């Protein structure tokens, strides 16, 4: 058996990684979040009928928007992955799916907290809520499906297929309030009527949407970098095992 060469990493660069555009995005997002909290809790007027509990809307809707965006990216990256077989797209899709599940969970939890004082119940199995639960389950399934495949390549292809097919639930979920009777309100931003929101409320909502989007982009890029690092470490381990044998 050949003796493996000792591996020593010698960095010729500075130890602390240099600042990148992501640092800039982080600080912009961090400041925007506190401005957003100020707008939501102190600046925007109290809603006349629902009272203060309506302020949860400025978290609920942006979280739902990010979940849709994340699942659209899973769909898109899934197609790229199946077309090119480049593992990079699978890393992107998996990272987006994880964040999509987190933001769907935030949407469900904020919805539940909002529903109790307004509708008198925490949860009802109506069209919107049921399809949201289904959406959450589909993408939890997406994250789990890879674990049951024999090889890493097969796992990533299975995942991509689930991500592409699973996206069908997103438009059904969005349109569910128009197609069926539901306790949930009709769409108010995209393809809906947002005139019942005052100018202050609209500004707060759009600021919150922008802040959540910036946070999502930051978290997505970091998660992708982490996933790529995991893959690189695995590759290095395999190389090392090959060298030792």
């Amino acid at each position: 058996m050949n003796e493996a060469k000792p591996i020593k990493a010698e960095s010729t660069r500075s130890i602390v990684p240099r600042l990148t555009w992501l640092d800039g995005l982080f600080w912009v997002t961090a400041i925007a979040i506190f401005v957003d909290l100020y707008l939501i809790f102190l600046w925007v007027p109290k809603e006349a009928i629902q009272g203060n509990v309506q302020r949860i809307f400025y978290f609920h809707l942006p979280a739902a928007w990010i979940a849709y965006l994340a699942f659209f990216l899973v769909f898109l990256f899934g197609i790229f992955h199946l077309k090119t077989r480049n593992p990079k797209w699978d890393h992107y899709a998996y990272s987006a799916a994880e964040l999509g599940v987190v933001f769907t969970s935030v949407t469900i939890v904020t919805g539940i907290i909002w529903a109790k004082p307004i509708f008198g119940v925490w949860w009802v199995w109506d069209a919107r809520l049921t399809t949201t639960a289904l959406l959450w389950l589909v993408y939890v399934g997406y994250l789990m499906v890879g674990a049951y495949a024999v090889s890493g390549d097969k796992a990533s292809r299975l995942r991509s297929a689930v991500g592409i097919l699973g996206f069908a639930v997103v438009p059904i979920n969005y349109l569910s309030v128009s197609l069926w009777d539901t306790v949930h309100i009709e769409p108010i931003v995209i393809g809906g009527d947002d005139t019942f929101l005052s100018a202050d409320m609209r500004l707060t909502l759009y600021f919150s949407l922008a802040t959540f989007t910036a946070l999502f982009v930051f978290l997505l890029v970091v998660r992708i970098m982490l996933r790529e690092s995991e893959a690189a470490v695995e590759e290095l381990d395999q190389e090392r095992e090959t060298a030792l044998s």
Partner: protein
Amino acid sequence: MEDNFGYLLAGFSIGWALFMGLAYWTYRKVMRVRQDIDDLKRARNPRPEDG
């Protein structure tokens, strides 16, 4: 809710600050790990510019 409004805002602010702190720490850690991996790859397969 009216009575606890200040506490709610304070709670959210502290929660967000902690979350963002953790996010930034993770980000810098990931950058460092990426650099370590890059260094390790260069040590195994030196590039012409490494001398």
